[in-house]
């Protein structure tokens, strides 16, 4: 029997990815802003042995349409709230880089890694929206030209670089508690990151010691060339949006990232409506049909999938209670969690600390 090797994540957003999902009979739209709602969803995903969940977020409202879900809680805080109540599933909140501080995000994701004991990731998100820029009033953001789009991604790449350097700014054994000399840390194992870039500079070191995974898992959604280059430089997992298996093969050839996950919006039967405007392909059908599609795309080089349930909780249950057992029957998905971190599960080694390596090469 082949080793279970397919990676499965779900993307959680409000009541689901369909604008009218909140009106489904089992939807809980009045509870979207409670801890209970998120605990239940993520526990369901964990019961399905999924690799990780992503939690959508943005620095603005979703729409101006009072018939659609509006408002959302901070995704990093949702992930953190749920972390002590789960044991295995990876927690990958979305956080925007365009208007925020890399110093703050670096310690927040590092801390999520501590509270979850090595299950933290981060979905890096850019914001080109004028409305979100106005919430900060510090700058204008434009994507009128190829150059301005490139700038936004270059800034994001610098941001991720700063976050990664901050994660490495403490060597793993920097805390020594040496009572004999009275030193709590070995200061030679803490490092200024001294980042100076086109968009900002950051001194370091972090105030938070290196997290359990060393580097939590960085993920990003990418649709075409500029974001592909960004993902190659910055991400451990890239989410892409192929139309079909041939397109998947074509994309896999273009992005050199260890894990290429395909995004799919998923409606599992019974399907009442599947009305959704989407960048990703919309799947409607049975769990067995979805399993066929996943295996065909895996053949094309896709290493995992991030399924976006059209309706919550029903399509999440369709995934955990329909798709997962189907994949398990076919011997391509785990029946049990192995112990370990999110990196372990994804087969990503715990990275050496870049500064420790530097020190060692000097010595």
């Amino acid at each position, binding site marked *: 029997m082949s080793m279970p090797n397919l990676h499965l994540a779900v993307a959680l957003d409000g009541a689901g990815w369909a604008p009218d999902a909140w*009106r489904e009979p089992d939807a809980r739209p*009045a509870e979207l802003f409670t801890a209970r709602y998120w605990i239940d969803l993520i526990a369901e995903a964990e019961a399905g042995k999924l690799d990780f969940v992503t939690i959508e977020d943005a620095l603005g409202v979703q729409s101006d349409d009072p018939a659609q879900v509006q408002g959302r809680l901070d995704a990093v805080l*949702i992930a953190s709230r749920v972390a002590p109540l789960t044991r295995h599933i990876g927690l990958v909140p979305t956080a925007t880089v365009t208007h925020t501080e890399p110093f703050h995000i670096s310690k927040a994701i590092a801390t999520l890694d501590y509270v979850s004991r090595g299950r933290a990731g981060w979905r890096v998100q850019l914001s080109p929206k004028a409305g979100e820029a106005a919430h900060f009033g510090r700058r204008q953001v434009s994507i009128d030209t190829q150059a301005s789009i490139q700038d936004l991604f270059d800034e994001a790449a610098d941001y991720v670089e700063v976050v990664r350097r901050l994660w490495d700014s403490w060597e793993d054994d920097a805390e020594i508690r040496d009572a004999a000399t009275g030193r709590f840390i070995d*200061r030679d194992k803490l490092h200024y990151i001294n980042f100076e870039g086109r968009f900002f500079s950051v001194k370091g070191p972090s105030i938070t010691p290196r997290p359990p995974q060393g580097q939590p898992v960085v993920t990003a959604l990418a649709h075409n060339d500029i974001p592909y280059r960004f993902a190659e430089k910055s991400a451990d997992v890239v989410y892409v949006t192929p139309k079909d298996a041939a397109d998947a093969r074509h994309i896999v050839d273009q992005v050199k990232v260890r894990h290429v996950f395909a995004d799919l919006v998923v409606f599992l039967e019974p399907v009442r409506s599947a009305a959704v405007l989407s960048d990703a392909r919309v799947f409607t059908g049975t769990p067995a049909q979805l399993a066929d599609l996943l295996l065909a795309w895996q053949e094309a080089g896709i290493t995992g999938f991030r399924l976006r349930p059209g309706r919550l909780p029903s399509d999440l249950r369709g995934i955990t209670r329909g798709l997962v057992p189907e994949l398990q029957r076919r011997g391509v998905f785990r029946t049990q969690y192995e112990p370990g971190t999110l990196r372990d599960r994804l087969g990503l080694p715990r990275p050496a600390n870049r500064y420790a390596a530097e020190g060692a090469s000097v010595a």
Partner: protein
Amino acid sequence: MPKQIHLAAHFPGVNNTTVWSDPAAGSHIEFDSFVKLAQTAERARFDFFFLAEGLRLREQGGQIYDLDVVGRPDTFTVLAALAAVTEHLGLAGTINSTFNEPYEVARQFASLDHLSGGRAAWNVVTSWDAFTGENFRRGGFLAESDRYSRATQALETAKELYDSWPADAIAADKASGVFLRHPDAGTFRHTDQHFDISGRFNVPRSPQGGPVILQAGDSDAGREFAAATADAIFSRHGTLEDGQKFYTDVKDRLAKYGRERDSLKVLPAATFVLGDTDNDAQEKARVVRRQQVSGATAIKFLEQLWNRDLSAYDPEGPLPEIDPDVSDDHIARGRASVRMHRDPIATANEWRQKAEAEKLSIRDLIIEVTGRQTFIGSATTIAESINHLVQSDASDGFILVPHVTPGGLDEFAGTVVPLLQEKGVFRTEYEGSTLRENLGLAPR
């Protein structure tokens, strides 16, 4: 009826209060430590759990300071996780108003308030220095004189954002298809000297209608800021006379903002050493203070006042004869306490006289002048002192800083708290479900 006492648990931070060399000291980073202290505080029916903040590692003489605990996790993330393992305890985070933007901070606190069922509190601090600013995009961009105008406007903006959602905005009516009863919920526009922002806030009104506001600055401007906006004030004035002076001062400022004297709680920081008897506690306290101030730590403290490298001096010897360097370039960076020495030469002279008169070495002297153990004694003595200070209007309660992480509150919870409960001055059950209710504050 006697005044009811409010108590909070301070997770020890990065100064020399924490005796990390104690064999009972555990991790100050691993989540289990936070769970342990928070659950002890909740079992003891404390009002809230408190986290301090520092956004740059301290330095002295151009090097990262290594004698105290160094490093801490992210405040919001820890508090959100603690909401999962506690039910009633307030969750107070120190978050700086200079290095954060109102939209982002407001949504983090509103999210924390939702995720904790109404237990969030924001300790608004205003450190502005360029040293800390080097970790942030815009660098050290604020003059000291602007720190409270930015804080005031940031907090005002945050409150506008919280209020931009009517409590009943969400209909979520499946039958009619109306999700939002008020289609313009969240709409805001704020323009002042520091912020020119507009749009829509994206977190619905939270259980408390916004976090409880704490304040911790001590200057005149800081006290004014507290009187105008805060629900509670975290002070350094934990003794009877000093406490009463401070208490009167800040409560007197409330009238001009149309506020009742009860609407602002005064909560000084306090450390404690418990013993079986008072003598036993005094003996333990002496040991703790020598652990807190090693010879090396004493020299570092002296350097902070002298603003010079004093590493050649013997901590067991006399104070330096040279005077402090009064130029601007402070040897210690990232430390609020350095600014407390307004006239270093005068302070140095006082210290020299004291050391001479009492025959104190450098280390002895520093132990004396930095000693901040507020309560030392048996459980009975400490319970009486706390109650006396509160009933004498030196405070409304205390924020307790144990010197051992994370078990340093266990004995207090097990011995002092029951005595306060017997006296009828401390709750035996939580009064309400939100922190605001437990602090006896009016709803927002």
